[in-house]
């Protein structure tokens, strides 16, 4: 079999970026949650908030550290595998990605250190301020990344001179048509991630009967937040979908599994899309519902995959099913948020075993939903790398061979498998040590390295006392 450098590079990028994305998506949500806890502590002086903030700051430190490590690879991927794309779009992409880096740089240079290590060394107000600035910094980072991605989805403000794109208008290039939907969709996704992880871990502690007071408080607050943000995500997702319908109709056709353009299009719940024969197998559908959702009219007209030639269609099966996984998990999240509301009576939200076990299981759902969502938008853009302007094939590094791409793909999988296992294993140890461990402020050896991970005091191996 001939090794295809294009396919292997796409798999490699998908792997590296999916792996990387789960860390920032968690830290963005968690940073805001910690700032909120710090704010509550500042206002009420209730030590329960401080203990929770301490515990989650440790978790934040570990996840942030892993995000930084996996992010290093990202900043080189564009050049190694997609050099034609990087070269053509560098006038825009270069400054935007650099701004993301200097935002993170700036953040780490100041406020992160104060937030992680300054609790007993700076005034309370300043510590709260640092936590807020870290939260703000995560949004600014997200801004640059999503701006770059939105330009690839709905390009604007660029001007082609020779082989290179020049930025004709920074305002248009940074704030393209899909930017605001994408940005808010991602921010809310981060809140959902932070929310469901906090809820899941609190539920796990409650099931074990540990630190019931603090965890009940955390769970109650988180459930109120989820009650607002889970349905909001549905609304923002809907707007995002309408914007996609306007600018990338083929992607929407793939999401819906709709081959023929038509009116009164049904919503397909289940199907096996068949790219080659241009149809679906085993369809289960609800009449006219897709038209209603996307055009807000039962007889609205929707684009079909057959509108464009076969080589301009994305891989339908992946887009179709990734979209269903994302939406399905979203609906499940809303269900849990409302179940929490109904279980308020008598405080059963903090005692009902099935509900708590469900929350523990749900803590991985936002990660799956986020990665599935990125698959929808990225795979759905295929064959375009920059929509309508440059295909994946045109953006690939010309000197890249299949063997080289396979070598690094396997390499990155091995490297990430090791750090991911070590990181997740350590995170589990932090969870096991729990909130109780944060009461112990003694200085330990690993404190001497003032690194993000040093904010966590838990030893790596079971039974060790570091």
């Amino acid at each position, binding site marked *: 079999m001939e090794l295809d450098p294009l396919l292997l590079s796409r798999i490699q990028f998908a792997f590296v970026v999916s792996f990387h994305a789960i860390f920032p998506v968690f830290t963005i949500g968690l940073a805001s949650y910690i700032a909120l806890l710090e704010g509550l502590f500042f206002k009420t002086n209730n030590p329960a908030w401080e203990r929770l903030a301490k515990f989650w700051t440790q978790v934040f430190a570990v996840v942030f550290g892993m995000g930084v490590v996996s992010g290093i690879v990202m900043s080189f991927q564009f050049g*190694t595998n997609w050099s034609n794309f990087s070269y053509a779009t560098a*006038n825009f992409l270069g*400054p935007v*990605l650099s701004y993301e*880096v200097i935002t993170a*740089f*700036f953040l780490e240079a100041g406020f992160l250190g104060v937030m992680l290590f300054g609790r007993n060394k700076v005034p309370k107000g300043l510590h709260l301020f640092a936590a807020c600035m870290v939260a703000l910094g995560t949004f600014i980072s997200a801004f640059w990344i999503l701006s770059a991605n939105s330009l690839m989805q709905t390009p604007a403000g660029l001007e082609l001179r020779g082989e290179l794109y020049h930025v004709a208008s920074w305002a248009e290039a940074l704030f393209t048509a899909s930017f605001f939907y994408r940005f808010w969709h991602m921010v809310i996704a981060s809140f959902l991630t932070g929310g469901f992880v906090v809820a899941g871990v609190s539920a796990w502690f409650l099931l074990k009967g540990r630190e019931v007071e603090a965890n009940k408080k955390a769970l109650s607050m988180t459930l109120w937040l989820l009650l607002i943000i889970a349905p909001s995500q549905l609304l923002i997702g809907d707007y995002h979908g309408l914007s996609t319908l306007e600018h990338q109709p083929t992607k929407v056709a793939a999401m819906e599994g709709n081959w023929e353009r038509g009116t009164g299009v049904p919503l397909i719940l289940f199907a096996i899309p068949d790219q080659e024969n241009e149809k679906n197998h085993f369809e289960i559908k609800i009449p006219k519902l897709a038209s209603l959702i996307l055009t807000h009219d039962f007889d609205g007209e929707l684009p079909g995959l057959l509108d464009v030639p076969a080589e301009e269609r994305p891989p339908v099966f992946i887009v179709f099913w990734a979209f269903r996984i994302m939406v399905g998990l979203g609906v499940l999240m809303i269900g849990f948020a409302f179940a929490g509301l109904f279980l308020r009576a008598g405080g059963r939200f903090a005692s009902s075993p099935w509900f708590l076990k469900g929350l523990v299981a749900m803590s991985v759902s936002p990660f799956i939903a986020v990665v599935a969502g990125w698959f929808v938008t990225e795979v759905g853009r295929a064959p375009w790398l920059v929509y309508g302007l440059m295909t994946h094939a045109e953006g690939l590094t010309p000197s890249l061979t299949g063997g080289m791409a396979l070598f690094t793909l396997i390499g990155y999988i091995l*490297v990430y498998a090791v750090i991911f296992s070590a990181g997740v294993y350590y995170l589990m140890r932090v969870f096991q040590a729990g909130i109780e461990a944060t009461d112990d402020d003694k200085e330990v050896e690993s404190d001497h390295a003032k*690194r993000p991970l040093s904010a966590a005091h838990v030893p790596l*191996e079971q039974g060790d006392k570091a």
Partner: protein
Amino acid sequence: MNAPVFDLTLIWVGIIGFGLVMYVILDGFDLGQGILYPFAPDEQARDVMMNSVAPVWDANETWLVLGGAGLLAAFPLVYTVFLPALYIGVFLMLAALIFRGVAFEFRFKANKSRYLWNWAFAGGSFIATFAQGAVVGTYIQGFETENFRYVGGALDWLTPFTVFTGIGLVVGYALLGSTWLILKSEGYIQDWAYKITPRLLVAVLVIFGIVGIWSPMIDDFLKDRWFSGVTLLWVLPLITLFFAGWIYRAVKKRQEGYPFVATLGLFVSTFVALVFSKWPYVVPPNYTFWDAASAHESQLFLLLGLLFVIPFVLMYSAWSYWVFRGKVKAGEGYH
């Protein structure tokens, strides 16, 4: 398009050059600890060595990420030729840096698995440094390009010459590491650092000498620049020798700070000599800094943000080195 009012390319050469020097000397001394790791007298010395860089290594490494992104913004051609040409080397460097970074995090939290993290730290440091040294060699050697694209093979970068420059940088970083250790340690660990520094210095000088003879043999441009007549460039090797002499004297007198300072001088003068050997070519043999530069408005857009951020980063870096001043004692970390 109206012509740019002011040429920012030269400013960006300065910024990227500054960032590169910062990266090489800062990450150089902490990579150096890893290179010296297998040779350390005992486990306690290894603790001290790692502690002597643990609070600063990741800030040091951030210069690499900033350099990567800054190159894409200011000199995209460098980014889009170097990375494809060095594809395998870049992967090895990144994988090595990641393992090394994880080792920093977990070595202190581990007991039973500590020896594994020692190996990850030493191996990662060695491979990452070797790859960086090979980049230097590849730069001297030049790139096969056509129409602003790399058209050579996957392993063109791996030649006897680049293997040699790779090993050269390993020894160079080891020297940075040992002089840093003189500054930060005491007792038998410092004695050990004093003992190995002159040997490393001799090795570095021999390697620099060989690279100096070998380079003109493989690159005519460089040969013309250095040997077509009397040139001011000849001062640079003399400056390098001066710093080498200073290192030697400072070690003999058992001074603690000067060996490191003089090693920094040695690195900077070598770097300047390298840049002027190839100037104005940044993707030799075909493209200059100006060929590689991005559009004026893109350079300007990023420059504004950078001018705002760099002072803060420098202030913070200076502050964290200040907090971290003094000796790292055995059996404890820094205070």
